[in-house]
């Protein structure tokens, strides 16, 4: 290149810059104010576009809602998409005083008692995988299920009032992971185990691992007519101690089948304190083998087997043993690349995608090929006698996507999206026929920040995903936000996936400051139809019906029967009725309260100082608290939730006469 005179170069450069800026200006239709702001805030055109795609003006409702687990915060978050605004934190396993969850409300105490282990009431949980209820493989916006990994529990949340209605403790297993997932018509809620242990919370020494320790999968029967899981009609299946991980339900062509991956087929049992030469931590032992097993379960057949009584009672719960499962051809294995973390079923139910974790490929199994392999027969068996389908017979494709693939979601254009933990990317790749003719290849990646675990696309778990938006649930936020001390928030990043081809645009970062989410689902907001107020005054959220003897206007009062005192109270702007309650120290108090409002947002709180009691009563709601009046004195109860102009004046005296 011949040396041009310096000034000419500068002139050329400047004119180029000027024309570029000018041309951009002339193309911009935003107006000078917007341009001014963009300039001042050093926003690029891409930033402005992202802002426009996410900004939701006051009064405008989000198009989608994301339900995300809160991890060991024990709750479920509700976040609007695309605004990425936190709308609600649904309390489940962890008491939460603002929404009056677990601070005296009898109904909540019953729920927590149902989730107790023995008589140990647990006040936290590790929520992982929320599952919206489905009809015909599509979200119906009626119920949400969530698991507690730490203690093997499941909960049912009613989306009419976004409250937890049921907590069940799994009688077979100490902890779980592969839950909750639902079948396409949500007759069944699936909860898979994880770390193997003796079933029914029994004890066995670890040297008996292969004979005594087991995995499990539990099928909870959901009765939509009562909006509750029916434990009496539920059952479990015994699995080998391979540390099952994540499950998913088949849909469309694979409806009636359940798939789980596993990661410790090696049956590593960790460092042995009696063996000083043993340096095999779990992380090593579990990664020793080349393959683990994808579990393939014929749920329809299993249901029939359970119904015919071929179960044993374990902790009072029906269990299909491994031998029964084998004899009735309920369970199959096929190899999957070592220690994968997730199994995801494509919208048509035809492909089962396992993301490799330590293998930069995703492995796609074909349901049709699985069926053919099952019919063909002639299986080898694993050490427990479970039939092994040949890997080459059932694999449809393997696509190299990048380093550390963990989970996969789908959209409406035949693309799949896989999170890449090590690369800190999300990879978009194409499914093969019938989704795309020239599929099974990597299309593009988008950088995320940082180290993504799960990801979610709009309605991505259903038979008809919407695409459009993807949220990356990132584990490390590092330099994305101002860091408030050493405990950093998580980072949800919203990505625009509407444009086909290699381009995906990062839109927005949302810090999660009170939980560590694991999984989320996104539903079109108009599929939900929650109540604004409870349908009738005196509504019991526990039973989701009117309580006939709930306090109403006119029936308030205090009545005594020996040392049992019953108080019936109504709450209305801006007073309690009664405003004075007198009991004797040592009385057993039953306090019934009804919020008799029928207006939107007219919530009242109720707190009794010193007694650790706080309720949140929505319009129409009735609740009951029961406690011993242990402390004598004068306690002012008051409305904790700001309710009206005279909210401060909404108070009363609770007088406990000393003995």
């Amino acid at each position, binding site marked *: *290149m011949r040396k041009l005179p*310096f000034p000419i*170069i*500068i002139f*050329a*450069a*400047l004119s*180029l*810059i000027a024309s*570029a*800026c000018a*041309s*951009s200006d002339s*193309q911009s239709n935003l107006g000078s104010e917007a341009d001014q702001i963009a300039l001042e805030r050093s926003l*690029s*055109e*891409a930033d402005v576009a992202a802002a426009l795609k996410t900004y939701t003006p006051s009064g405008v409702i989000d198009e989608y809602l994301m339900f995300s687990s809160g991890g060991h915060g024990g709750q479920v978050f509700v976040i609007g998409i695309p605004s990425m605004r936190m709308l609600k934190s649904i309390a489940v396993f962890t008491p939460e005083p603002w929404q009056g969850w677990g601070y005296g409300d009898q109904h909540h105490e019953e729920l927590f008692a149902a989730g107790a282990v023995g008589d140990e009431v647990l006040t936290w949980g590790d929520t992982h995988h929320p599952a919206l209820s489905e009809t015909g493989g599509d979200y119906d916006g009626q119920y949400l299920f969530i698991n507690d990994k730490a203690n093997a529990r499941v909960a049912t949340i009613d989306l009419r009032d976004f409250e937890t209605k049921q907590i069940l403790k799994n009688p077979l297993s100490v902890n779980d992971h592969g839950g909750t997932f639902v079948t396409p018509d949500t007759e069944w809620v699936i909860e898979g185990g994880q770390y193997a242990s003796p079933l029914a919370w029994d004890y066995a020494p670890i040297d008996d691992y292969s004979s005594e320790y087991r995995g499990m999968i539990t099928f909870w029967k959901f009765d939509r007519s009562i909006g509750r899981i029916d434990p009496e009609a539920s059952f479990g299946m015994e699995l080998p101690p391979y540390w099952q991980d994540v499950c998913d339900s088949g849909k469309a062509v694979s409806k009636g089948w359940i798939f789980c991956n596993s990661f410790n087929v090696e049956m590593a049992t960790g460092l042995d304190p009696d063996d000083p030469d043993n*340096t*095999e931590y779990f*992380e*090593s032992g579990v*990664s*020793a*083998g*080349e*393959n683990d097993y994808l579990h393939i379960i014929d749920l329809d057949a299993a249901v029939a087997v359970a119904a015919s009584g071929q179960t044993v009672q374990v902790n009072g719960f029906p269990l299909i043993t491994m031998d029964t499962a084998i004899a009735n051809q309920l369970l199959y294995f096929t*190899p999957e*690349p070592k220690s994968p973390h997730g199994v995801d079923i494509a919208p048509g139910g035809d492909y089962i995608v396992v993301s*490799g974790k*330590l*293998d*930069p*490929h995703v*492995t796609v199994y074909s349901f049709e090929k699985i069926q053919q392999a099952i019919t063909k027969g002639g299986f080898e068996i694993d050490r427990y006698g479970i039939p*092994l389908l040949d*890997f*080459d017979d059932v694999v449809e494709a*393997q696509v*190299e*996507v*990048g*380093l550390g693939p963990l989970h996969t979601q789908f959209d409406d254009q035949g693309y799949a999206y896989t999170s890449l933990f*090590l*690369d*800190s990317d999300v*990879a978009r790749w194409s499914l093969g026929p019938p989704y795309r003719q020239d599929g099974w290849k*990597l299309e593009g*990646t988008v*950088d995320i*920040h*940082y180290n993504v675990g799960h990801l979610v696309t709009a309605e991505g778990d259903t038979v008809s995903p919407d695409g459009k938006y993807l949220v990356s649930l990132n584990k490390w936020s*590092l*330099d994305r936000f101002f860091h408030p001390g050493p405990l950093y928030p998580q980072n949800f990043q919203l990505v625009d996936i509407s444009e086909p081809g290699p381009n995906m645009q990062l839109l927005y970062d949302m810090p999660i400051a009170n939980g560590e989410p694991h999984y989320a689902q996104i539903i079109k907001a108009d599929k939900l139809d929650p109540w604004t107020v409870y349908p009738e005054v005196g509504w019991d959220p526990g039973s989701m019906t009117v309580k006939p003897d709930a306090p109403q206007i006119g029936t308030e009062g205090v009545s005594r029967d020996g040392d049992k005192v019953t108080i019936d109270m109504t709450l209305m702007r801006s007073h309690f009725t009664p405003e004075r309650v007198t009991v004797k120290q040592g009385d057993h108090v039953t306090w019934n309260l009804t919020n008799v409002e029928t207006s939107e947002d007219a919530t009242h709180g109720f707190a009794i100082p010193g007694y650790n009691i706080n309720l949140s009563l929505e319009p129409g709601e009735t609740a009951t608290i029961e406690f011993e009046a242990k402390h004598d004195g004068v306690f002012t109860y008051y409305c904790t939730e700001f309710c009206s102009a005279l909210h401060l004046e909404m108070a009363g005296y609770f007088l406990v006469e000393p003995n």
Partner: protein
Amino acid sequence: MSPARIRKVLGPRVPNDVAQQNRETYRRPKRLLTLSSILLGSSIFLPYWELKLNAPQYPDGLRVTAWVNRLRGDVQELEGLNHYIGLPSFSDGAVLERSVSIVGIITLAALLLAGHYVHSRWALCLAGPAVLFPFFFLADLQYWLWNYGHSLDPKAPLSHAVGEFTPPIFGTGTIAQFDTFAWPGWGFLMALTASFLAALGMVLHRRAYKPLALSKDVPNTATDVDKSVVKKKAAHTALCVTGLAIAVTVGADISANASPVQLENQSNDLQRLIDQAEPGAVIDLEAGVYTGGVSIDKPLTLRGTNWPVVDGHGVGSVIKIQAPNVTIEGLIIRNSGSRLDQEDAGISSNASPRIKIRANRFENVLFGMFLRRSNEAHILDNQIEGMDLFIARRGDGIRLWQSSDAIVEGNHLTGGRDAVFWFTDQITVRRNHVEDGRYGLHFMYSDEANVHENLLENNSVGAFLMYSTDLVVTSNTFKSNRGPSGYGLGIKDVDGLTAQQNWFVGNRSGLYVDNSPSKVGESHTITHNVFAFNNVGALLGSTVARNTFTQNAFIDNGEHVSSDGTGNLQANNWSKDDIGNYWSDYSGFDADNNGIGDITYRVDNLFGDLRTKYPNLDFFSGTLAATAIDMAGQAFPHLRPDPILTDSAPLIAPPNLPPISFEHNDSKKATSIITSAVLLTTGLAVIRRCRFDNERTADTRHS
């Protein structure tokens, strides 16, 4: 040999005018000879004879195909059957013929070519062998077939049931309960055609040259020869020699690589040898094929001479070791099973310290070597070729798990998946060549490793070292690794790294750094490396800090350094003790002539920055205009965005580039082909020159 003698052998020269008038007469025989030569030479690549056997218990039949030097097909099955009726082993038959066949046929073909220059009757001697060859082949084949059929071992169980017989060369026959059908292969037919063409060529040859010899007018002396003809002859000779050299080399190579008829010894021979050996014994294996799937449960050495083969027959692992102090060397280990879930391997070990695996060839194995809990292994100078499967479906060429203190040196891995070292401390990985794989090297939780002088090329990722501490990575070449991530060397959560004198060439990202160093207070120095022709020379996560880059050469990368994320990389140092790096796009002055530029080097990417703001500018990417803008940016400070990095002491000239330490082991074939090609080119050049000269001479004559 006196010149006169030579002249007599070479025969008469054709005078130019005669040649001009009767061009065809002299060309035709040459063409035929050439064609015949080519056909004969090529025939070695095709089968010469095929035999099919049918019997009820073999629904698909058995088939044996004979090339000139080897048998293929259901040879082993047939051997087994032959054993029952007392036929000798195939390896005993036609040994001499098979060993000389390739070279011999090539020689015959070369002799035919030589017939171009011999115009006397001696040409018949040159062409004769080629003409006779197919018939010789048939005669020889018939002899051996008769020989076999009449050499039944009377002690064989079924020898009396069969009786003596001669299998027919062509057509149908019967051997015991088998119906047989034999037919000539394409190779033989080509040789036959070549024979016919050569004969025809000879006829025309004699017709062309005999009259000349008889004529007294034709000058017959060397004195009339002019220089151009001599040159022409020299050129032709060079051509012939070249052709011969190529042919002989190729032939020798084929001979060498095509194993002689390789047949099973008695099955379980090798296992029996192992079982009968004393612990610590040395078992010497001669050439031959041994059945694999053997287990070694005591200290032992298996040493091969002339490349014995241990064949797994596609089932399971070929050699399984469960004992200390086992040595395996000089073997061809092939055909393991293809079950990933069974971890089928060439060599599989468990709890077997001090294994030595030296100078073996692994062919068509799923995992090459899978060592578990086997400390102090020495894996040296092996050739490992994986299975021809989709890359994710292959096994790893070398996989060490929980096997510390290993030395892995001088191995060549190709067509495998990864070379994996997990939970293996204090290993040395040196002078290995890993290509066409997925991860050239993959470390996880493997501390105190030395990685030197390896060549990692054309893999999806050259090396990815994660969650490991105290790694010394020097003098390696990471070249053309271009999978979706395409890192030459990826480092994740590593502390205690030394990275020096490495070449990062032509990768998507030469070096990728994620959270390394990870411990607050730790730092790394990265020095004397070359980053050249990568899309990105070094790609660092935006929160990566405390790395010092000094005296590296960044040469013509798409971007020398980039941040994976937004923000800058100024938490790292880009010079040390006032010595920075060489940046090929640095333009600055060095007024005090100290080799350090006086203007700070900035990775600004002003153009890139503008491009993000105004995507229309993308049109100008890579153009002079873009360069101009970047230059403008340097001249006008207020236009400059925050730099990704600044190097306050950029080197004016590249530092002494590190030596390329890895030598390719080129095969002899390559060198001889190159030599031959050179000769060929020279020869052709001379010919052209001669022709040119001739034409000029001819022109001058006629003009």
